[in-house]
């Protein structure tokens, strides 16, 4: 078996690539044992052999080779250079500023949309409150009007009797200036898609009943309404009648009156 000194004699030939297979195999087996001295000596031998490159006379390759090579290199480098042009042209501080402006504009747009939504909601609430207030005021006005009609001694009382044993009796009072107020309790709810319609029957012979308001009692059967502008004056009116008509009313009665009251 060879020792290190014997292997050392092979190192230059090995670095040169000149060993025959048997010697190369034996040396590689020894190097595989991680012999530090031989490993270092081998590196020295390789470095020595590499110096032989200088023995060859230098020669200039053609310019075509360089051109071809640079073309290939540039072609390979293009993917590396394909950065976003703006990213290379715009300074970082400007990119940061643009990014901040973009974020601020996005926030402003979002905030504006949020505020617009809140304003719309506030307007809707205000409109609703206003509507409720107007309704309440109207109800108040009507209540006052009803009270004045009912309490005024000049108002003429009109009893509206139910026909065909209708259980409810309605009371009406006609004020010459404020109109006719009708009140009643336990009034049956008209059939589905139907309303109660008020008719004024003129005294003139041959005259047709004059259509007036359409009403429905509340859930408790209470019915209160005022006809502010009767179609005929009191002295020209023979009677007041109420019929059940399809929703939306009719130009003339389509059913037998549920209540009728003579105007005296």
């Amino acid at each position, binding site marked *: 078996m060879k020792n290190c000194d014997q292997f050392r004699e092979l190192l230059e030939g090995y670095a040169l690539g000149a060993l025959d297979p048997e010697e190369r195999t034996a040396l*590689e087996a020894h190097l595989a044992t991680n012999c530090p001295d031989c490993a270092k000596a081998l590196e020295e031998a390789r*470095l020595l052999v590499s110096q032989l490159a200088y023995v060859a006379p230098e020669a200039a*390759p053609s310019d*075509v080779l360089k051109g071809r*090579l640079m073309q290939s290199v540039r072609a390979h480098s293009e993917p590396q250079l394909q950065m976003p042009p703006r990213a290379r042209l715009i300074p970082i501080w400007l990119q940061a500023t643009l990014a901040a402006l973009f974020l601020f504009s996005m926030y402003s747009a979002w905030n504006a949309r949020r505020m617009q939504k809140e304003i719309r909601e506030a307007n809707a609430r205000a409109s609703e409150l206003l509507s409720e207030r107007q309704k309440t005021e109207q109800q108040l006005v009507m209540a006052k009007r009803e009270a004045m009609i009912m309490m005024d001694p000049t108002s003429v009382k009109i009893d509206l009797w139910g026909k065909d044993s209708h259980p409810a009796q309605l009371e009406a009072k006609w004020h010459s200036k404020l109109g006719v107020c009708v009140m009643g309790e336990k009034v049956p709810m008209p059939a589905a898609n139907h309303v109660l319609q008020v008719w004024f029957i003129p005294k003139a012979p041959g005259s047709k009943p004059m259509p007036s308001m359409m009403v429905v009692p509340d859930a408790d059967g209470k019915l209160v309404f005022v006809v502010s502008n009767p179609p005929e004056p009191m002295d020209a009116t023979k009677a007041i009648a109420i019929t059940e008509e399809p929703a939306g009313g009719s130009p003339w009665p389509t059913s037998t009156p549920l209540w009728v009251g003579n105007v005296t």
Partner: protein
Amino acid sequence: MFLAAFTSSGPREVSPDATLLLRLLKKDVGAFEQLYDRHARLVYGLVLRILQHASTSEEVVQDVFLQLWRNAAHYDSSRGPFVPWLCTLARNRALDQLRLKSERQRRREDQPDRLPSVVVAPDYENALDEKRRAEHVRALMASLTPQQKKAIEMAYFEGLSHSEIAAALKQPLGTVKSWIRNGLLRLKEGLRAAT
């Protein structure tokens, strides 16, 4: 120590090649061009000496430099100077081409593409510039016996083994081994003395 011949005792400076290689790692085309301009003549001269054919040599040189461009990270500056690494790469490529051309099947597994693993100072190139080193190596080779020089050149530039050289020169195998080893040792001594 022979390695000491490649180590400068003066203040360390970063070699131009080291700077260019750092830029090459970042795919700097300009750095690649400068490295080519610095070493293409040496590499092409070596490959042409091996292949003896201009257009084939240029193809090999192109392959070597493209490999450098693609795999610059394979070169570790802490493990040795750049030029020997590049020349080793070029020589192996050229010998592969030579074998392919001549259809020789002899294996050369003992010539890896990497540099010696022992650390060599990166300012090695400052100790002796390329031109002076080339002149010195040529002078040392010229000082060898014709037999030593011939045997070494047949091994290095033609990729022949001891046996093949012995057969070609019609000399005993042991004699050829001695020519090569003694010639290389003399070269080693000469390089060491130069520093």
